C-alpha cells in the first residue's frame, strides 16, 4: 500500500531559495517512515511536491487542489507563507477535509482562524517571537530601535507584535517601516531608517530578499552597526554574505535545544542537504506528525487521524527524536503513548501551533553561534 | 465663408505660416497653390484644428473657430482630406466610408444594444450611399478590400470619397489629384463643380496640376514662404511674374526637353 503526502511550498517566487531544504526535510521523514516498513503494516509514503509560489493565492489554491483531488494526498506539508496557506486551507483543504501542517506560516492571524481542526503548524506564532525578541534586546540594555519589516502579513504581524511588546516594556521604536521584497534598491528605506536613528536595527525580513538589501545598505552607509534578526533573517546566507561585518548582532529562530536538532542536522547532512536551513526541521516534523498520527489512529483518513496529532505532539510517553520514527511507529502499534519531539521540540499549544522555543543566536567571528534557548 | 486673419504657425523657430490673411468666399471653388513648403498644408491643418495656431484668427461664416478641435469642426460642416492619405487600414473600403456620417444612432452603446432595428435601417441607407460613392470613384470592386491594401491612388480616391458621404458646407482638398489618374481626375473635377453648383458646397483646393486649377478654381490664392503672394482669377495668376518666378517656372525647359528627347530618339532609332 502507498500513502501520499503533498508538499506545497514556494519553489518559485520570492522564497524559492528557502523551499528546497524544507521539502527535503519533509521528504526525509517520509523516506524514513517508508524504509522502516512499520507504518500501518508496511505502507510506503511518497511526497508530491507542488509549487505554492508563496505569494499567489490563486496559484497556491490550484496547486493544493491538484495535490488533493488529482494526487489524492492524505495530508499536506504546507503552505509556506501565511497568506497563501490561509487561502489553500480555506478553499481546498477544509472543503475536502484534508489536514494541513505548515512548517513556516507564522502569522498571528492563523491562531484564531476557523479550521475544523485540520490546520496545525510546527512553528510558533509571531506574537510569541515578538516577546522573545523584546526580552533579548532589553537584556542587552538597548532601549531604542528602528524596525523594518518585509511588507507582508508575516513581516507586518511580527513587527507590530514586537513593537507592542517592546513599547510595553518601556523601549522606544523610532520607526516601524515596511520594505518590499525583490526591489532593485533599498537606499530610500535605509535613508529613512538612518534618519530615525536608534541603537539597533530590527530587520523582520527575509535573508535572501529585501532583508539582505537593507542590511547591506545599512552597513555600507554606516547607518547602524547592531542588528536584530528574527527567523526570516537567520540563515547560512547571513554568514556567507556578511560574516564578520555583523559581529555582535543577534537574533532568534524558532528552534529547540538539544539532541533533536543536532540529530536532524546530522541526518540531513547524510541525506545531502543543509539541515540548519530555516524551517527545514519544522518541515520534517510536519510530515512526521501526520504519519505518526495515522499510525496512532490506525487510519490514513484525515478526518480520523487529525484527532491524534495533538496527542502525539504533546505526550505523555516516550520522547521521539529525528531518526527514531520507526521506533515511534512501533510503540504506537503496540498501543503505547509517545511524545514526538522531533527536530524542533514539537510542543503544540492552543489550536495546534508550536509553543515556541526559540534559539537565541549571536554573530561571533562571522559565525552564527547559539547563545541560549528561550 | 472662411476668413483667416494674420495667421502664424511656428514649428520651433521655423515659421511655416507667417502672417497669412485670406478669405474663401461662400460658394466659391478657391484654389490654393504655392511652392513646396509654402505652408499650404500647414494652413489647412490649422484651419481644420489639427494644429493650434501660434497666433491669428480663423472665422467661419463670422463665427470664431480658432482652435476648435477637428471633430467639432466636422460637425460644423467643415471637411478635409489629407495630403498623405489617412485611411483606416484594417477596415474595409466600405467601412471606411460608412463610418463617416456623424450622429449615427448606432454610435451610442445604448442603441447598439437595445435599438437594433433602428440601426439596421440606418445602416442599409449608409451602405447604399457608400456604394454609390464607390461606384463614382470606380473602385466598387474593392469595397470589401482592407483599405490598407489599396494602391496609392486608390487611397487618395477613398480620401475624397469620405467627404462625399455627408452634406458639407466647406471642403478642403489637399492635393486630391496627386497620384490620381488624369482621366479620373477630370471626372472628379466635374463632380466638384457639380457639388458646388447644385448643393452649394464651398471648396478650397490645393493642387499642383495647373490644368486642374485653371479649369476649376476662381479665385486662386498663391502662397509662398508662409504668406499670401498673390490672389486673383487663374488667368491673371498664371501671368503673374512673381508667381511664375516662385512657382510655375517658365515651362520653357519643357520644350527643350521635348526636343532633346525626339533628337535622341532619332539617333537611337
Amino acid at each position, binding site marked *: 500500500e502507498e500513502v501520499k503526502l503533498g508538499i506545497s511550498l514556494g519553489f518559485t517566487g520570492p522564497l524559492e531559495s528557502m523551499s528546497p531544504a524544507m521539502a527535503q526535510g519533509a521528504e526525509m521523514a517520509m523516506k524514513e517512515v517508508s524504509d522502516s516498513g512499520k507504518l500501518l503494516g508496511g505502507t510506503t509514503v511518497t511526497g508530491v511536491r507542488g509549487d505554492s509560489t508563496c505569494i499567489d493565492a490563486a*496559484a497556491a489554491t490550484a496547486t493544493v487542489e491538484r495535490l488533493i483531488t488529482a494526487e489524492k494526498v492524505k495530508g499536506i506539508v504546507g503552505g509556506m507563507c501565511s497568506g497563501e496557506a490561509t487561502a489553500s486551507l480555506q478553499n481546498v483543504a477544509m472543503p475536502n477535509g484534508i489536514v494541513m501542517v505548515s512548517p513556516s506560516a507564522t502569522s498571528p492571524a492563523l491562531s484564531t482562524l476557523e479550521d475544523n481542526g485540520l490546520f496545525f503548524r510546527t512553528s510558533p506564532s509571531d506574537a510569541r517571537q515578538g516577546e522573545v525578541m523584546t526580552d533579548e534586546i532589553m537584556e542587552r540594555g538597548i532601549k531604542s530601535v528602528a524596525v523594518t519589516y518585509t511588507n507582508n502579513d508575516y513581516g507586518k504581524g511580527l513587527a507590530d507584535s514586537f513593537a507592542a511588546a517592546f513599547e510595553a516594556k518601556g523601549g522606544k521604536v523610532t520607526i516601524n517601516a515596511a520594505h518590499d521584497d525583490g526591489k532593485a534598491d533599498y537606499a530610500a528605506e535605509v535613508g529613512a531608517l538612518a534618519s530615525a536613528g536608534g541603537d539597533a536595527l530590527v530587520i523582520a525580513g527575509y535573508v535572501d530578499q529585501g532583508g539582505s538589501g537593507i542590511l547591506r545598505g545599512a552597513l555600507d552607509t554606516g547607518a547602524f552597526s547592531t542588528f536584530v534578526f528574527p527567523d526570516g533573517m537567520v540563515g547560512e546566507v547571513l554568514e556567507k554574505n556578511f560574516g564578520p561585518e555583523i559581529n555582535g548582532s543577534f537574533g532568534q529562530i524558532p528552534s529547540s535545544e538539544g539532541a533533536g536538532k543536532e540529530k536532524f542536522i546530522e541526518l540531513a547532512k547524510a541525506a545531502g542537504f543543509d539541515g540548519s536551513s530555516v524551517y527545514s526541521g519544522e518541515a520534517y516534523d510536519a510530515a512526521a506528525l501526520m504519519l505518526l498520527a495515522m499510525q496512532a489512529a490506525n487510519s490514513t483518513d484525515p478526518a480520523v487521524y487529525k484527532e491524534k496529532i495533538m496527542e502525539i505532539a504533546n505526550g505523555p510517553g516516550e520522547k521521539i527524536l529525528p531518526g527514531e520514527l520507526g521506533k515511534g511507529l512501533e510503540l504506537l502499534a503496540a498501543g503505547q503513548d509517545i511524545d514526538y519531539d522531533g527536530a524542533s521540540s514539537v510542543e503544540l499549544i492552543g489550536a495546534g501551533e508550536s509553543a515556541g522555543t526559540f534559539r537565541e543566536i549571536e554573530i561571533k567571528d562571522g559565525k552564527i553561534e547559539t547563545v541560549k534557548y528561550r | 465663408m472662411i476668413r483667416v486673419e494674420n495667421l502664424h504657425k511656428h514649428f520651433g523657430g521655423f515659421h511655416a505660416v507667417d502672417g497669412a490673411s485670406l478669405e474663401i468666399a461662400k460658394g466659391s471653388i478657391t484654389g490654393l497653390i504655392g511652392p513646396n513648403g509654402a505652408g499650404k498644408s500647414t494652413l489647412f491643418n490649422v484651419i481644420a484644428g489639427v494644429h493650434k495656431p501660434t497666433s491669428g484668427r480663423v472665422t467661419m461664416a463670422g463665427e470664431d473657430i480658432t482652435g476648435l478641435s*477637428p471633430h467639432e469642426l466636422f460637425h460644423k460642416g467643415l471637411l478635409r482630406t489629407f495630403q498623405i492619405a489617412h485611411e483606416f487600414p484594417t477596415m474595409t473600403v466600405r467601412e471606411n466610408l460608412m463610418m463617416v456620417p456623424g450622429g449615427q444612432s448606432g454610435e451610442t452603446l445604448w442603441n447598439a444594444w437595445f435599438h437594433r432595428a433602428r440601426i439596421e435601417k440606418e445602416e442599409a441607407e449608409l451602405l447604399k450611399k457608400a456604394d454609390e460613392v464607390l461606384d463614382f470613384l470606380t473602385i466598387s470592386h474593392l469595397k470589401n478590400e482592407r483599405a490598407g491594401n489599396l494602391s496609392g491612388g486608390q487611397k487618395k480616391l477613398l480620401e475624397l470619397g469620405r467627404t462625399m458621404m455627408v452634406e458639407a458646407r466647406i471642403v478642403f482638398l489637399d492635393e486630391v489629384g496627386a497620384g490620381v489618374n488624369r482621366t479620373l481626375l477630370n471626372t472628379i473635377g466635374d463632380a466638384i463643380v457639380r457639388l458646388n453648383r447644385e448643393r452649394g458646397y464651398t471648396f478650397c483646393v490645393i493642387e499642383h496640376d495647373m490644368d486642374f486649377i485653371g479649369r476649376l478654381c476662381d479665385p486662386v490664392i498663391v502662397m509662398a514662404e508662409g504668406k499670401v503672394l498673390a490672389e486673383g482669377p487663374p488667368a491673371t495668376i498664371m501671368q503673374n511674374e512673381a508667381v511664375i518666378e516662385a512657382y510655375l517656372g517658365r515651362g520653357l525647359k519643357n520644350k527643350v526637353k521635348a526636343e532633346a528627347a525626339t533628337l535622341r530618339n532619332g539617333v537611337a532609332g
Partner: protein
Amino acid sequence: MSTHQPTAAKGGKLRAPAFFAVMAVLIVIEGLSTGWNGALGILNMGLISAILALGVNMQWGYAGLFNTGVVGFIALGGLAPVLVAMPPTAGAMAAGGWRILGALVIAGAVLIAAVWLNGRLKGRAKAAAMIATLVAGFFVYRAVLDPAVDAVQAINPSALGYLGGLGLPVLLAWPVGAALAAGAAWLVGKTALGLRSDYLAVATLGIGEIIVAVLKNEEWLDRGVLNVNGIPRPWPVPYEIDLQNSADFVARAAKLGLDPVTASTIFVKLLYAGLFATVLALLLIGAQLALKSPWGRMMRAIRDNEIAAAAMGKNVTRRHLQIFVLGAAVIGLAGAMMISLDGQMTPASYNPLRYTFLIWVMVIVGGSGNNWGSVLGGLLIWYLWIKAEAWGPEIMAMITAHLGEGAFKQHLVDSAAHMRLIVMGLVLILVLRFSPRGLLPER
C-alpha cells in the same frame, strides 16, 4: 520578403468552434484523468480570466489603448467584496471612521480646488498657487487622517484593525467592484489618455502600482498586507462543510454514487461555474453587439487612425475615455468575482506579472480585437499556467530518468520547479508562432 499582411488565419468559420471544442476536450480530459474538482477549479478561474481578457481586449483590441495597469483595476474590484460584504467592525466608525471619511472629503476638496485654480490662473501665479494649495492641503489631510487611522488600527489589530464593510450580500459587490474600477479609470483617463502607446503603458503601469500600494499599506481600509479572510460566498453558493453536514445532500449524493466530500466540492464549483458563465455570457453578448455595431466601427476607426477619425467628426478623447472606463469596469467586475471565489483579499498578491502581463498574454494569444479570442485566450492560458506547474517537473523527470545518478542529475531534479516557467514560455512562443495574430484573429 513581401509587404503583404499575413493572410487571414486558415479555417474560416469553423476555426472558433474548433478551438473551443479543443478547449472543452482539454477540460474534460483533465476531469477524467485527475478529477473533476481540479478541472472545475481550472474552469472557474479560467472563466474569470476570460472576463479579464475581455475587459483588456475592449481597451486594446477595440481602441488601441495600451493599459498595463490591469492589476490595479483588478485590485480595486477586489476591494469591493471587502467593503460591501464584510461585517462592519464594531466601534471603528466611532473610533475614527468618520474622521477618515472627513479626511477623504478634504483630499477631494483640495484636488478640486487645484483643478479650479489650474483653470483660473496663468503662468507663475498658477504654478505657485497650485503647489501651495496641494502642499497645504496634503498636510491638513494628513493631520486629520493620521490619528484617526491609528485609532481604527488599534482595534484588535491581529484580527480586525480596519473599518470593515457594510455586511451586505457579496453579489452586490460585483457591480460595486466594476464601479470602483470605472471611477478610477475615469480619473486616470481624464489625465493620462492623451498619452500614446508605450507612454500610456508606463503611465498606467504606474497607476496600477499606485493603486496596489495604497491597498497594501492603508490598513484601515482593507487590513493591508494582513489580508482579509472569510469573505462570504455569493448567493447561491453554499459552504462544503454545510453540505456535508446536511443529511439531505449526503443522501442525494449517495444516490449518484458519490461520497459527500467529492459531491459537495464539485457541487460548489459547479455553482460558481454557473454564476461566472452567466456573467461571461452576458458580457460577451454585450461586447459582440457593440463591436458589430456602428459604435464598434467607430472605435476601430479611432484605433486605426486617430487623426483621420477626428477629422471625420469622431470625438477621439471622449471615446477613448468611454472605452477605457468600460474596459476597466469589466476588469473590476472580474476582480470582485475573483475575490468572492477565493474568499479572501490579499493585496500583496497583486503583482503585475500575474495580473497584468498574464492577462495581456491571454488577449494576444486569443487574438486581439476578437471577443471570442479573448475568451479562448483566457481559458487556454489559465489552463496552461496551471498545468505547467505539473508538467514542468514531469518533463524533468522524463529527462532525468535515463541519467546516471550524480551531481548533475541532482541539480536537474532540484531545479525541476523552474521547468514551470520554461514550459509556459515555450508554449507561449509556440502558440504565437503558429498563429502570429492570435488563435482567433480579428478578421
